[in-house]
Each structure stands twice: as structure tokens, then as C-alpha cells.
């Protein structure tokens, strides 16, 4: 796969935004047909680097930029496109209402003869691009009816219509299940075999190690190094990305002497989950794992009162409860951190302060009106208690990194004074370094007596952070494990079996 001449070669890339050096003299190269991983925490400069390569930003003086051996002095987005450099951003930027063919061949659609849509050429181009990937999709299916993995394929196929030679994929597996990820990896291999270089930007280290030839690691806008992937381990990559060493150890402990806070008895919802029973004790962390679609989130939403069980009981502090809505659950001290922080968990355009007090307004009232001073106290208390890094509390929460957003989301629920905190995939879109920080908070909360249900589809997260693990599959509890009595590999084997 190595070739004498790199397809893309950058040296001494610097860029500054608002007085902050976003990139401090980074170099980066990609060989033809290579699968390359661009790794680093959020905010380390990965996206900025991609935007420089595609001509969105201009690097500062002194940068060297070669593509296919030719020096490039002023890259522009249209030039990047004509050179065959394509980016598939995480949000895919596809049109849900349009068909597969229209999405893929949409450049043809806007540039037909006389400004009309050349439908036949469009369909042909879409067919050709999909054939190159070795997949077949119904070309006339509206995109929104496809599962997310296939939409991913559509986005890749669209990049290929433009005769791609270098494709960047930003977090392509973030919302895929394991089998979908495997499928995507297969596609990327085909792509690379046909001579297209692929640069993978991903947080999920396992797949990065599986698929890449080489990796470039960035940290705080500086280059850590270019490494061959062979022989690399996950913990080594984490260390390179964060500059820190994370010791992993099982923390599971018995809580049999503690009172049962929540007792779930034969809980069922048709077509979602069936016959779920478990006890949760004070200060205990219960891990819930299983593949996507195992019914984990549905169960969590039922415990949170947003859905009503068809059968079974929820017993809270010895009393059977019937939640009509999540407001009842919140009043009873049940909090639920949504897996979808971007659209459900937080109100992204609104301020950090407003997001933080959103669930606990009743606690900051004074004479029936919201008291600005009480609000300020609550906000500053939780910001400092959870070590959230913010500018001003009035800033929109979307200006924060994933890890800091998640801390605010946790603070929002701690502000109601909960008995039970359900964390649904709390590390999605959170950096490796920041993940450790989130789990540190979770452990501290458990030690203070909070009962926690930790839902994750990444077995290591529950293995290292829970006292007990429930394994869900197809809406049922398949087994309950004690992390002290099994290895992580064993757990992964059972979950992925």
C-alpha cells in the first residue's frame, strides 16, 4: 500500500482564531489508497485541519501544501472538490425527503441541460457509485426510510460520484450498531482497494485500530505523531490522545447491606421489553448493556414515566408508583439523562444557566417568580461542583465541548435532588479524556448514596464502572453478571455473541 509519493502532504500548518492557536505547525500526509486515522480529542484541531485541506480556512504564512505532488497555494472548496477531496460530515447533510438516487446524483440534478434535471444521468451515476462500493440499494426509496447505516452508504456513494480520490469520514460509526459498523468497515476496505484514500475521524478506538494502516494523532492543536497502527493498543492510543494514563480497574462492590431504592417487577411493554425484574440499592451502580435495539432506552423511558408499562410494577422506596408523565417521575426523584444530548438532553441554542435549571425551576422560585439570585447560586454551585469549564453562564450551551455539555446535563438532574439517576449512553460524542471525568463524577455520586442505572452499548464502560451488569437482548434480561467474576473479554464475547 505504501507508495513513494504521498497523495496529500501538509507541513507547518498554523491557524489562529480569536487569539487562540487552533493549529500549531501541524504536518499531515496521506498515501494513495491508504486508510488513515486522524485521532484526537474534541477541540484538538481535527475539524480545523480538514477545513484547511478542503479550502474552507486559509492556513497562515509558511504552510506547505502538496496534492498529488503539485504545490497548492490557495485552496478553495470548489478546487478541493475538483481535485477529488470529499468530506462526509457526521450529520451526513443528506435530504431525507429525496430518494437514494437523487441524494447520490444530486450534482447531476442541478446541472442538467437547460438547467433541467437530467434524471436518467442521475440514476446512472447513482448506480455506478453504489456498484463501486459493491452494494445495492433501492434507488427510488426515500432516504428517510433507510436505516442510518445505509444513509451512511448513500453519503459515501455521493462522494464517489465526484470521482473522489481522498475521502474524509467524520465519526462515521457514531450512531451505528456493531454489525452495521462491520458492514461500513467492509465498504471502506473496498474503497481503499479501489485506490481511494480514506481518512477516518473517530472516537471509537476499536474500529480505528481494526481498519487503519497509519494514524496521525493531534493534541491541543499540535501534532503528537504519525504512527503505524500495527502493534498499537487502545490504551496506548488513549494515552497519546490525552497525554495521560488511565488505569482501569473493576470497582464493583456489594451493596447488600443497603436498602432497596427501586424494585422493578416483571415489567413489560409490548414489542419493546418483556418481564424485566431487578432491584437497585442505595449507592449502587447497575450497568445495563446490550446491542442497540435491545430495549434499553425503552425500559429507561418507562422508569422515567415517559411511557407507561403494559404489565408489571415499579416499586420506589417500598411503594408501587404509577407515573402519568415524567413530571411525576421527577417529583419522585427519578432522573433520566437522554442518550440524545443534541436534540433531547439539552436545549442547544439556550444558555448554560437556563439548561441547568430547566428541571428544577420550583427550587429557585421566590414568591412565585424566578429569583435571579437563587438561580445564579444554583448555577454557580453546580458549575464548580462538577468542574464544568464555561465562559459565561449566559453563553449558549452548544458552545461547550461534548464533555462539558454532559456535565451540565448531569448537573441539571442533580439539581432536582434525585434518588435514582438513569444515565443513557452518557459518553456518546464525548472525548476519551472527558469520559474518564464523567465516570469520576458518576463514582463520586454513587459513593454519596445516589443509585445509578448506567446504560451503555460499550461493554468496557459498564464493566469498569458498575457494581452489577444486566445484559439485555431483544427486550429481555439475558443474564446478570458480576464484573469481579469475569474478564472484560468474556463480557464482550457474551454481548457481541
Amino acid at each position, binding site marked *: 500500500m505504501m507508495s513513494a509519493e504521498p497523495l496529500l502532504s501538509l507541513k507547518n500548518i498554523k491557524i489562529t482564531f480569536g487569539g487562540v492557536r487552533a493549529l500549531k505547525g501541524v504536518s499531515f500526509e496521506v498515501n494513495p489508497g491508504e486508510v488513515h486515522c486522524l485521532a484526537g480529542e474534541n477541540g484538538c484541531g481535527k475539524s480545523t485541519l480538514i477545513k484547511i485541506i478542503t479550502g474552507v480556512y486559509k492556513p497562515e504564512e509558511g504552510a506547505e501544501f502538496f496534492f498529488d505532488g503539485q504545490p497548492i497555494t490557495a485552496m478553495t472548496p470548489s478546487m478541493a472538490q475538483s481535485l477529488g477531496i470529499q468530506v462526509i460530515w457526521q450529520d451526513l447533510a443528506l435530504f431525507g425527503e429525496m430518494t437514494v438516487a437523487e441524494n447520490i446524483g444530486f450534482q447531476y440534478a442541478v446541472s442538467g441541460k437547460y438547467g433541467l434535471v437530467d434524471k436518467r444521468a442521475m440514476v446512472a451515476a447513482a448506480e455506478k457509485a453504489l456498484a463501486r462500493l459493491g452494494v445495492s440499494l433501492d434507488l427510488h426509496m426515500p432516504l428517510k426510510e433507510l436505516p442510518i447505516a445505509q444513509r451512511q452508504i448513500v453519503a459515501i456513494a455521493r462522494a464517489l460520484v465526484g470521482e473522489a480520490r481522498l475521502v474524509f469520514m467524520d465519526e462515521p460509526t457514531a450512531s451505528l450498531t456493531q454489525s452495521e459498523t462491520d458492514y461500513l468497515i467492509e465498504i471502506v476496505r473496498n474503497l481503499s482497494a479501489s485506490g481511494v484514500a480514506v481518512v477516518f475521524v473517530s472516537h471509537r478506538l476499536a474500529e480505528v485500530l481494526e481498519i487503519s494502516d497509519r494514524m496521525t494523532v493531534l493534541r491541543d492543536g499540535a501534532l503528537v505523531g504519525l504512527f503505524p497502527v500495527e502493534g498499537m493498543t487502545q490504551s496506548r492510543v488513549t494515552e497519546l490522545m490525552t497525554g495521560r494514563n488511565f488505569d482501569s480497574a473493576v470497582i464493583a462492590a456489594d451493596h447488600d447491606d443497603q436498602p432497596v431504592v427501586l424494585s422493578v417487577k416483571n415489567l413489560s411493554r409490548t414489542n419493546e421489553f418483556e418481564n424485566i425484574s431487578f432491584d437497585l440499592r442505595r449507592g449502587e451502580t447497575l450497568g445495563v448493556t446490550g446491542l442497540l435495539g435491545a430495549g434499553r432506552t425503552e425500559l429507561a423511558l418507562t422508569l422515567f414515566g415517559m411511557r407507561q408499562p403494559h404489565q408489571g410494577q415499579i416499586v420506589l422506596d417500598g411503594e408501587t408508583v404509577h407515573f402519568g408523565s415524567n413530571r411525576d417521575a421527577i417529583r419522585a426523584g427519578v432522573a433520566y439523562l437522554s442518550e440524545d444530548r443534541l436534540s433531547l438532553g439539552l436545549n442547544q441554542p*439556550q444558555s448554560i444557566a437556563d439548561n441547568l435549571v430547566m428541571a428544577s425551576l420550583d427550587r429557585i422560585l421566590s414568591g412565585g417568580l424566578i429569583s435571579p439570585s437563587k438561580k445564579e447560586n444554583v448555577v454557580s454551585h453546580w458549575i464548580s461542583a462538577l468542574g464544568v469549564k464555561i465562559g459565561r453562564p449566559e453563553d449558549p450551551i452548544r458552545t461547550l465541548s461534548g464533555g462539558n455539555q454532559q456535565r451540565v446535563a448531569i448537573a441539571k438532574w442533580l439539581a432536582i435532588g434525585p434518588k435514582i439517576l438513569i444515565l443513557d449512553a452518557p459518553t456518546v460524542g464525548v472525548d476519551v479524556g472527558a469520559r474518564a471525568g464523567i465516570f469520576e463524577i458518576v463514582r463520586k455520586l454513587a459513593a454519596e448514596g445516589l443509585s445509578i442505572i448506567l446504560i451503555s452499548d460499550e461493554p468496557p464502560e459498564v464493566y469498569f464502572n458498575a457494581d452489577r451488569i444486566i445484559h439485555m437482548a431483544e427486550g429481555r434480561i439475558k443474564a446478570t453478571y458480576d464484573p469481579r467474576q469475569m474478564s472484560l473479554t468474556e463480557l464482550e464475547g457474551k454481548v457481541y455473541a
Partner: protein
Amino acid sequence: MMPLIRKFNNTFGADMTGPVIAFVAVMVIFGIGADNFLSLGTFGSVAFQLPELGLLTLAMLLPLLTGGINLSVTFTANLAGLAAASVLQAYGGVDAPGGAFALAVVAALATGGAAGLMTGAAIAYTRAHPILVTLSMMIFLRGLGEFLTRGGDVSGFPSYMAPIGHGSIFGLPIPLLIFIVCVGLWQVLLTHSKLGFGLLMIGSNIEAGQYSGLNTRRIIMLVYTLSGVMCAIAGIIMLARFNSVRIGHGESYLLITVLAAFLGGINPFGGFGRVLPVFVALVVLQLLSSGLNLMGANQHLATALWGVLMIVVMAARTIVSAYFASRRKKI
């Protein structure tokens, strides 16, 4: 210039910039162009014209902030006026006693509130788009009103009601005072009440609000109910000012209320906006039309210029924010 702007933004909020610039521009242009613009007469006429449009704009404001709209504001106002009128007429019309007036006000507020509640419930429970629901409501109320009045005017009210439309206390017009009290109420509602907090939150993301335990249905129903009540207040003032009720009164105000709200920096997608910039925007619109009036321009031309002003302000906003963005990058 820069520190001055920053200081202004910190004190009054960035959304105040547009209305204040427009205000200064209108004052300067007409102050120079029209002889007697800077006179008590101008401000008197603005002060009497402002409240009707102003109250209807307040009625429009809350739905806009939730990401919705209320297209039935003018007909709700007149139907509420009609409710008041029929109570007064039942008690003797011109000779109706003070108690009947109190009852008439209650009837108007109840009618406005009920119309709003119906709208709000329809939006909250059917999840239909507020444009569709309030458009239906608008057509319904207009038809109902025309049926009840047979398309004509209802008049003949006790003379003690006239001051509500025309009177002054300490030189300040009573309708203006009523309007200012309502502005104050809306200000407190939006900045300090649970309802205000909730309606802004659901304006930018209703699902996130739901997941955080906000009672989104109740919020939407309350928002439209309050919108209807505010319409009723406008309806009572219109009744007193014109000494008559007609279902089509102030029909042309409908879209102007939306315009005034956007001129006042309300986010067209909901979730963000304040009352005070909208208040200044309303004053600017009235000054503009009074100034043109003084210069002898046609009234229809004034309306056309309102549209132009809106486009200019939108463009200015884009240019100013682009300028600041480029400044930030260079620093």
C-alpha cells in the same frame, strides 16, 4: 466606536441595537425633513395610536416566542369587543350603569381567553401547525362575528367609556398607560415566571423541554389563552376609541404585529426575544407613519415604507453581524 457598542449591548442587550438605530434614524430624518415633527402634537398622536397596535403585538409576541403564531388576533379582539358591547346593550346601551361596564370587561376577557384556549388546546393536542390552527380560528371568528353583527357596526355605549379611548391622566393618554402596564406584565412574565421560562425553552426545542419535565401542553394552552386575553384588552380599547365594534376593525394590523415583533429582534424560529426592543420598534413604526403624515405623504405609502424599513433592518443586522464576525477573526 467598538467599546461604545459593547457597552450598549451589555446594558440594553444586542437585540436593542436595531430598534434604537431605527429610532434615531427616524427622529433625525423627520426632525430635519418635517417642520413640526419634533412637537407635542406628533407625540400625542403616536401616544394615542400606539396602544392598539401595541397590545395586538403583545398578543402576537408570546405565540411567536414559542415558535408559533396567532393569526386570529384582530378578530379575537373584535369578538371580545362584541361580547362587551352586547353586555352593555343588554343593560341599556348608552345608559348602562358602571356595574354593567365591569361585567362587559369580564365578558370581553373571558371571550378572548376562551378563543385563545381553544386555539391553544387544538395546537397542543393535535400537534397541527399553529399557522393552520390559527388561520382556521381566524376564519371561524371572523365568520362568527360577521354573522352576529350582520357585517355592520354595533354602537351606542355609555359616555363614561370614552376616556378609555381618548382620556388622559396627568397628560398621559389612558390607553397608553394601559399599554405600558401590559408591557410591564409581559416583561415580568418573560423574565421571571415559570411560564415565560418554559415558553422560551419550548420555542427553541419542545422535545428537550418535555424530557426535562416541562408541561409543554399546558404551556402552549396558557400562551394562547394569554394571547387571547391580551387581544380582549385591545378590543376594549378599540371599542372605546371608535365608540363602535365592527368585526373588521384593525384588520390591517395583523401582519404589522408580526413585523413589529421581528423588528424588535424576536427570533423568527422562536425561543429568543424580549419585550422592550419590541416596544421601541412599535414606537418607531408609529413615528414613521406620523412623520410621513406630517410631510403630506399618502397613508398607503407609509404602509409601504414599513415594509421597506423591515427589509433595511434585516439587511443591516446581517451586515453588522458579519462585520463583527470578521473583526473577531482578525483579533
